[in-house]
């Protein structure tokens, strides 16, 4: 740092109105002494009330908005077009939220402490979550297709086909006989 920079700030350090009013200082000190005992009850009530209420409101809004429960399996079984759109919107929203969080942490320079590890772990869990979700979705989609289903009853179907085949054969026999006559 240059010497003249220090001169510059020395002048500001000596600004005439730098010190707080004595009356003001005493007044705050007295206020602090008076309110000293109230602190614990206020904090706990706020915590007890706000957190569950916020969670309940969010849960309610989500359930009203989607008509779905919170189980992932149900979310994975979304089939209608509207619900598919919702899944994509949720995906995009989560992706943007996570990306914004990462950009915020690094560009704000909050690179000391847990936030960096949070960016790594959240990215990793996002990846794992997407893989699991994609896997569930694929399993559910395959169940819809009868050709891959284990519950498809080939034997009874075969019997039906044989019956139809026999009926057709006897009908053809009759018509052929009629034609010859």
């Amino acid at each position, binding site marked *: *740092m240059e010497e*003249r*920079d*220090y001169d*510059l*700030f020395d*002048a*500001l*350090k*000596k*600004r005439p*109105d*730098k*010190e*707080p*009013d004595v009356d*003001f*200082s005493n007044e*705050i*000190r007295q*206020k*602090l*002494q008076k*309110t*000293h005992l109230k*602190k614990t009850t*206020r*904090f706990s009530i706020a915590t007890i009330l706000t957190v569950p209420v916020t969670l309940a409101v969010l849960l309610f809004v989500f359930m009203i908005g989607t008509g779905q429960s919170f189980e992932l399996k149900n979310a994975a079984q979304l089939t209608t077009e509207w619900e598919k759109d919702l899944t994509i919107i949720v995906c995009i929203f989560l992706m943007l939220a996570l990306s914004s969080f990462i950009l915020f942490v690094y560009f*704000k*320079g*909050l*690179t*000391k*402490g847990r936030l960096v590890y949070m960016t790594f772990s959240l990215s990793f869990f996002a990846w794992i979550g997407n893989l699991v979700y994609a896997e569930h979705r694929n399993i559910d989609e395959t169940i819809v297709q009868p050709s891959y289903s284990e519950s498809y009853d080939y034997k009874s179907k075969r019997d039906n086909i044989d019956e139809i085949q026999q009926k057709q054969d006897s009908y053809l026999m009759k018509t052929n006989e009629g034609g010859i006559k």
Partner: protein
Amino acid sequence: MHQDIPKIEHLYDCYHRDVYHFALYYTNSKQEAEDITQETFFKAMKQLDKLKDNDKVKTWLFSIARNTAVDIHRRQKIKRLITEKLSWQPVLKEVPKPLEIVEKNEQWQTVQEALMTLKSHDRIIIICRMLKDYTIQETAVILGISEVKVRVDFHRAMARLRKKVGRDD
């Protein structure tokens, strides 16, 4: 340990001047500086049981002061802007008296005014490093950023300030 937690009155006696100076440099307004000081100590009182390490009390208190200063100053700015918009004309500043005009030329005011034109983040770094003489480590804790970021941003902020003061070579 509960017994180890310092008393708020003791903290106030030790640091209220420092917090006030910080707020005054940040806002350049006596009223706002008083509001910030008051709010900071009330917030500190509520969060005192969260303080784990008594050695870090100074940086802990100043990180509260910094957040409070940013909030209050922003609120005041918005209030001023709204008043300005509602009255359809800029709020008239008090006409300076002759003595004040003479004082205007004082160096500290030039530096303070230049400081006020900087971004909040740059201003806080300069206040911490140059006016309150905190170390890079302390400034990093107050701002919640890494030490490298403090060093890099401090040099950039100083370059900007020099430009504003007209000492840019």
